[in-house]
């Protein structure tokens, strides 16, 4: 894409992007979830998941794992958004997608999702957790074909799925688990996708 025209370029994150990603995450989480999620929960997530060191390690692992993707969107060679998709743990999940607050509603999130979906095999199904009160995000996911799979408590889910720990007594926050399924090869191209793989040498 042409960066000068204001279109984001999406690429794999590199460890050197960690500080830019951390800055977006540390600003975006309190802005997005203020009033929706217990401040102690937000503080724990930011501290544990958005340190430069934690992000560098996560990016390095995603770069060496075929079914994990840590993507960044750039404008004028500046990181303005990111996405982290991973199959570690209980299954494929979009763990985080955040955009620079000054650049919302410019198609950056859609560009990140489009690149992820282009990379996924036909038939892949994955989930994400979104705080139910975050209506703009829920609507964004609905527009991109996600459907509600379950209702959960957000902090408990984050603790179980991402290993984030909180102080005792933190307040619950209703959340949705939403699911996206990429159409199978036969649905998308008319080619059935029944394959077996054998190592020959």
């Amino acid at each position, binding site marked *: 894409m042409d960066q000068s025209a204001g279109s984001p370029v999406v690429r*794999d994150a590199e460890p050197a992007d960690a500080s830019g990603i951390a800055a977006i995450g540390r600003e975006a989480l309190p802005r997005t979830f203020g009033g929706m999620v217990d401040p102690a929960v937000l503080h724990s997530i930011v501290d544990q998941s958005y340190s430069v060191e934690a992000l560098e390690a996560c990016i390095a692992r995603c*770069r*060496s794992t*075929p*079914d994990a993707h840590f993507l960044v969107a750039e404008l004028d060679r500046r990181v303005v958004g990111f996405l982290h998709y991973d199959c570690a743990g209980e299954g494929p999940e979009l763990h985080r997608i955040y955009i620079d607050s000054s650049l919302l509603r410019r198609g950056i999130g859609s560009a990140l999702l489009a690149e992820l979906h282009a990379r996924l*095999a036909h038939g892949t199904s994955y989930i994400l957790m979104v705080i139910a009160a975050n209506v703009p995000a829920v609507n964004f996911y609905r527009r991109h074909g996600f459907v509600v799979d379950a209702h959960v408590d957000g902090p408990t889910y984050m603790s179980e799925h991402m290993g984030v720990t909180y102080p005792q007594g933190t307040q619950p926050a209703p959340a949705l688990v939403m699911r996206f399924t990429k159409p199978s*090869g036969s649905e998308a*191209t*008319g*080619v*059935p*996708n*029944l*394959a*077996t*793989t*054998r*190592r*020959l*040498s």
Partner: protein
Amino acid sequence: MSVYLVDRTLPGITMEQLAAAQKAAIETSERFSSEGKQVRYIRSTYVPAEAHCMCLFEAADPQVVKV
């Protein structure tokens, strides 16, 4: 790097669909390699009477071929 055989049954596939699937395999292999996930598409053989397609890939990790 090892060589992997991907074996598929494709009943009713047209030659246009087969060509598109081969093109997608080549392009996806090139993209994965450019991202550091080494995989090379080698060739495919299609047996029309059995609707049977066999594709050879060279890859460092079988998971990349399965994806």
